[in-house]
Structures are given as structure tokens and as C-alpha cells.
């Protein structure tokens, strides 16, 4: 069966592997290789640079948000115009007794007494510190003590960057006298939104985010995984399932604000669920997260080798046993990856939550999923809109908290994924 080689074939000259043409081609190949590597490296360096810029500028701006300026004020309680028997503060009615005192006037008086003219630089909310100190230790009422009271917003800004000339002068004076000090602002981590930037805290928004994420996860994970399992393992392949698949893919790409409108129309207007609540926020975000989980889940389930299904069916496992004993455990790491991506997106979502009223001014942390709440990104948005200069660092500090939240959430998910990962 030896067909004659065509004459043109026979006339081909032997390839000159060492010739000049060949050398030039090799050089061109090498340089294109080098060029491609350089472009790739530049892309990586650029994205790393942007990331570093973001992190550094956030830390630079936000780190001071976790501290505050405090003024040491000598308070002579026995001489102060309060008539409380310390014994009454140890019993049941302590809060009522405390409420009967005009702490604001007392604080102003003490500040003026101790600092003279500079007493005006005490924060409007400083009386809270004084009240809490007395509440914690009623014996203070019989003593003269030095309390560290937070300084006002203007002085705080003067201390950290550049404030008004008067504030700068006052800070220089107080700093020299050793009265002004810098301390960690624990209240920022434990309190909620306020109108005065020295009093604001992130805990309310943090807890709101936590509750909202819990609702989102509890709704979207089981529903998404079960939908993915049904579509992959049970549903027949026909026009209907094709249509469902296309719809799910489209849902994953719908802008989030539209989910917000849907939440407003359905959960608030039709179902009359509480406005501004973590429950409704979580439900709205669950709608947004579910398609992501379904798509990732289907891909993960598809990637489970069919031989494992055969093996289980071959020794008489029922379809549901095949799914829950073999397919789901093997697909779980992939499903979790999709869930992380979906939840991370939900955590950073602002627009749909504005639609359902989670942008309200919430001065106390939510007690449950039906209480009015706000979430970290919305809080950041609200603070970034404030006029007072003191909110700038608070905004950055809140961003740091949000990023840490995101990072810890992802770390837990990656840990779980690696734990469940099986190799074969």
C-alpha cells in the first residue's frame, strides 16, 4: 500500500536548522516569550500596588479612628451638688437614681472648675463617662478623683491633624500641661451610631451585619444547595430545565438594587415584615446570593466523577443515599467556594439595603433579627456623607472593621473547605 510520494514532496530541500532564518525565528520566539512574561508581571505588580495603596491609605486614615483624645479632669464629688446615698446605687433602683441626676450640668461644672476656660473642650457626651464611672464604683461619691473625659470633636481633630486655630492653641496648652492624652477608644467598638463623632461606635452596625449575614446564609445555603442537587441529580433534561438554568444564570447577573426593590415590594409592602430589620435585609440578600450558590453548586456536583455514583449504585445504594453519602460530601468544598463568593458580595452590599430602609439612624445595637438595624457598608456610606470632620477617620475605621470582618469570614470558610476536601 505504498502510494508514490508526490513529486513536489520529493523536491523539498532538507530543513536548515542552523540557518540565519531559523536563528531569527528562534530569537523572535524568545523575545515574544519575554515580552509576555513582562506584561503579566506588570499586571500583577499594578494590582498589588493598588491593593497596597488601598490598605495603607485606609490604615493611615483609619488607625486614628480607634483612638481619642482625653482630658484629665479632677472631680471632687463630695463638693458637687448631688444628693445620692451611695448605698442606693448598689440595689435594684440604681438606674432610676442615676437618671435623676443632671450629669450634664455636673460634668460642665467639674470641667470648668478644673480647667477654667478650657472646660469647653470637653465632649458633649463626656457626662456618660462620669455617670458610668459612678455606676461602676459608687464609693467614688465620697472621694475626689481624676477622671479621663473624652475631648470634644474639635480638640480631637486638632490633636490628630489640623483643626481650627483656637482648638490648636487650646490643645497645645492642654498638652503642655499634661492634661490631654491619647487613649484607645473602646467605645468605638462597643457603641452604636450617634450624632457626635466622638460618641459613635461600630458595634451596632457590626451586629447588624452579623445578623443579616446569618439570615442570608441560613436561607440561601440550604435552598441553593438543594436546588443545585435537584437540578443536577434528579431533574430530567428538557426545555423546562434549560429555561430554569438560563433564568438562574441571568438572576446572578441582575443588579443588586433591583433585588432591593423586590424586597421592598414583596417583603415590606405585601408581607408587611418589619422595616429596616436584619430579617428583611437578610432575605433580600439571600435572593441575590442564591443564584451564585446554585451555579457554583451545580458545577461542583458535575465535577464529582460518575464512577463514584456507579460504584454506590452498583452495591445497591438508593439515589438519595448516593447523593447524601457520596456526591454531596465530594462537592461540598466547591459549593463552599461559591458560598464564600456569594456571601462576601452580600456582606459588602449597600444599595438593596437602602431600599428596604436599613439606612435609618440606629443609636442602639439590634437585639434580634426583627429590630431596626443597619449594616457595616451602609454605616460607612452614612458616615462618609456627614459634614463634621470627625467622621472622616470614623469612616476609615469602619472600613477597616468591614475588611477584617470579610477576612475572618473568608478564613473560616477556607478552613472549613480544606477540612472537607478529599483527594482521590
Amino acid at each position, binding site marked *: 500500500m505504498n502510494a508514490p510520494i508526490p513529486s513536489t514532496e520529493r523536491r523539498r530541500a532538507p530543513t536548515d536548522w542552523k540557518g540565519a532564518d531559523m536563528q531569527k525565528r528562534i530569537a523572535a520566539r524568545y523575545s515574544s516569550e519575554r515580552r509576555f512574561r513582562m506584561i503579566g508581571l506588570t499586571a500583577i505588580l499594578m494590582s498589588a500596588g493598588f491593593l497596597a495603596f488601598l490598605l495603607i491609605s485606609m490604615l493611615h486614615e483609619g488607625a486614628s479612628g480607634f483612638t481619642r483624645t482625653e482630658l484629665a479632669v479632677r472631680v471632687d464629688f463630695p463638693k458637687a451638688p448631688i444628693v445620692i446615698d451611695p448605698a442606693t446605687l448598689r440595689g435594684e433602683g440604681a438606674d432610676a437614681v442615676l437618671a435623676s441626676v443632671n450629669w450634664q450640668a455636673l460634668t460642665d461644672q467639674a470641667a470648668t472648675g478644673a480647667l477654667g476656660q478650657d472646660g469647653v473642650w470637653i465632649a458633649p457626651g463626656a457626662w456618660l463617662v462620669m455617670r458610668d464611672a459612678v455606676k461602676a464604683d459608687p464609693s467614688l461619691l465620697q472621694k475626689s478623683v481624676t477622671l479621663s473625659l473624652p475631648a470634644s470633636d474639635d480638640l480631637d481633630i486638632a490633636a490628630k491633624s489640623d483643626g481650627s486655630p483656637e482648638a490648636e492653641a487650646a490643645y497645645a496648652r492642654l498638652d503642655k500641661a499634661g492634661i490631654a492624652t491619647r487613649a484607645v477608644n473602646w467605645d468605638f467598638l462597643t457603641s452604636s451610631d450617634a450624632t457626635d463623632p466622638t460618641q459613635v461606635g461600630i458595634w451596632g452596625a457590626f451586629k447588624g451585619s452579623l445578623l443579616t449575614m446569618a439570615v442570608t446564609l441560613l436561607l440561601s445555603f440550604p435552598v441553593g444547595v438543594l436546588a443545585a442537587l435537584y437540578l443536577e441529580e434528579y431533574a*430530567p*433534561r428538557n426545555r423546562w430545565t434549560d429555561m430554569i438554568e438560563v433564568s438562574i444564570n441571568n438572576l446572578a447577573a441582575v443588579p443588586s438594587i433591583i433585588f432591593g426593590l423586590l424586597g421592598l415590594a414583596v417583603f415590606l409592602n405585601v408581607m408587611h415584615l418589619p422595616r429596616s430589620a436584619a430579617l428583611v435585609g437578610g432575605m433580600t440578600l439571600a435572593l441575590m446570593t442564591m443564584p451564585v450558590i446554585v451555579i457554583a453548586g451545580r458545577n461542583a456536583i458535575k465535577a464529582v*466523577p460518575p*464512577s*463514584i*455514583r*456507579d*460504584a*454506590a*449504585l*452498583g*452495591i*445497591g*445504594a*438508593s439515589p438519595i*443515599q448516593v447523593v447524601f*453519602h*457520596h456526591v454531596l460530601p*465530594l462537592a461540598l468544598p466547591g459549593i463552599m467556594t461559591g458560598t464564600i463568593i456569594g456571601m462576601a458580595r452580600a456582606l459588602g452590599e449597600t444599595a438593596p439595603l437602602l431600599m428596604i430602609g436599613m439606612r435609618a439612624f440606629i443609636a442602639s445595637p439590634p437585639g434580634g433579627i426583627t429590630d431596626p438595624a443597619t449594616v457595616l457598608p451602609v454605616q460607612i456610606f452614612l458616615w462618609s456623607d456627614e459634614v463634621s470632620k470627625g467622621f472622616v477617620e470614623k469612616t476609615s475605621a469602619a472600613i477597616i472593621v468591614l475588611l477584617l470582618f470579610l477576612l475572618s469570614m473568608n478564613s473560616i470558610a477556607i478552613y472549613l473547605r480544606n477540612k472537607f476536601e*478529599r*483527594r*482521590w
Partner: protein
Amino acid sequence: MPQSSTPKMSARNVNVFYGEKQAIQNVSIDVDTDNVTAFIGPSGCGKSTFLRTLNRMNDTVASARVEGEITLDGENIYSSGMDVVQLRARVGMVFQKPNPFPKSIYDNIAYGPRIHGLASAKADLDVIVESSLRRAGLWDEVKDRLKDSGTALSGGQQQRLCIGRAIAVEPEVILMDEPCSALDPIATAKIEELIHELRGRYAIVIVTHNMQQAARVSQRTAFFHLGTLVEYGSTSEIFTNPREDRTKDYITGRYG
């Protein structure tokens, strides 16, 4: 030719379709416990398809349709009264590519007995695991590392683990779909030896591409070609004195 009195499984006029395409035409065959039955034939002749109809594994293919009658101990396995899950426990299967679960060796064997409720106490399960691994000829190699993953074993060991897994649910029939095609000659020899030992206890049907293997392990051979059963008889007769020209051409290497 040893012929047992009652066949364990018998097929009568079986046709299999994948959608419009007919994969098996009018096959009738009996399988018994005393003999190992080998299905041979060129690629695409339908021998694997037919094997998979014997424990209804073809049910997982949406477009597959089976006509005719296949009985296990006289009971039609395609009747509505037959529970597929139980059928597959009674008619076990070993696949072409070793497919242990990504679980421990112990759990691989114990999985079947567990889901079928064959053992309640841990001690009972231990006995089943040991006896199944012994019968699969794997016990001595793995007895000290039952907690290791089944996927960490070599290919031949994995395949014996899969045979042990099938044995653990005490099936009546074991179907083997080219069990040695992914194994080296030494591992193949071990599996063949194992098949010899299991003969008589289980009805064994083996699909193979390797004619020498069919000659070595089986007592009865069925030759399939283009979806039809060309010839079925004792192995020695098929290989030495085939009745059909097509069989003769195939076993002498003219095609396939």
C-alpha cells in the same frame, strides 16, 4: 461441558435501545453459579451494555430502553414489583476502572452492609470486613492499615477492594465489566486467580477484551458482534471449534 440444572439468571429475547438506536438485538442467554461466563467481542458490540441490563444499571441512562425478559431465580427483574436497590445488592458489579470511595478501606467494605442493614453491631461489621477482604485476597496486604484511604492503594489493590466491596453485601451474581483493562499483568493475574476462587459461590459474568483472559478464567463464553449474540457455549469449544465463521475470525485475530 458442565451444565447446572437451574440457571441463576436468564435472558429471553432482550432488545436494548438508546433512543432510536438499537444496541442489543434479541439476545437470549443463561448464567449459572457453577461456571464463570465470559462475554467477548469487538469494541461496541454491546457486551457491556448487555452486562449492565443484568442489574439495571442502564436505568441511569435516560434514553435507554430494555425489551424482553431477564429473570433472577425465575423473577423478572424488569417487573414493577422488583426493587432496583435490592436487585443491585443481589447482583453486584465491578467496573472497568477501579472506583473505591474516597473513604477508608474499612468504610469502603462496610458501606454496603451498613446501608442494607446487614450488620448492626460493630463486631459484626468487623467480621464482615475481614471475611470480605480475605475473600478478595487483600486482607494480608491491608490488615494493618484499614483506616487508610482506599484511594491510596495501587490499581490492582483498588480493584480487589472493589471486588471485596461487592462481596460484602453477599450478592448472588457478580458482574465484572473489563475488570483488568486498567491493570498491569501481575495485578491481572491476581484478579484472575480471585475469580477462580469465587467461582461456585457466586455466579460470575465477566466482560473482557482479552481473549486469553476469557480462555483462562471462564467455563462458558458468549461472543457478541454488532449487538447480537453470535455464539454461546463452553469456552473450550468456542476457542477450539467455533461453529460460526465470525467467531472463528474474531478469535484468530482477523478483526476486532
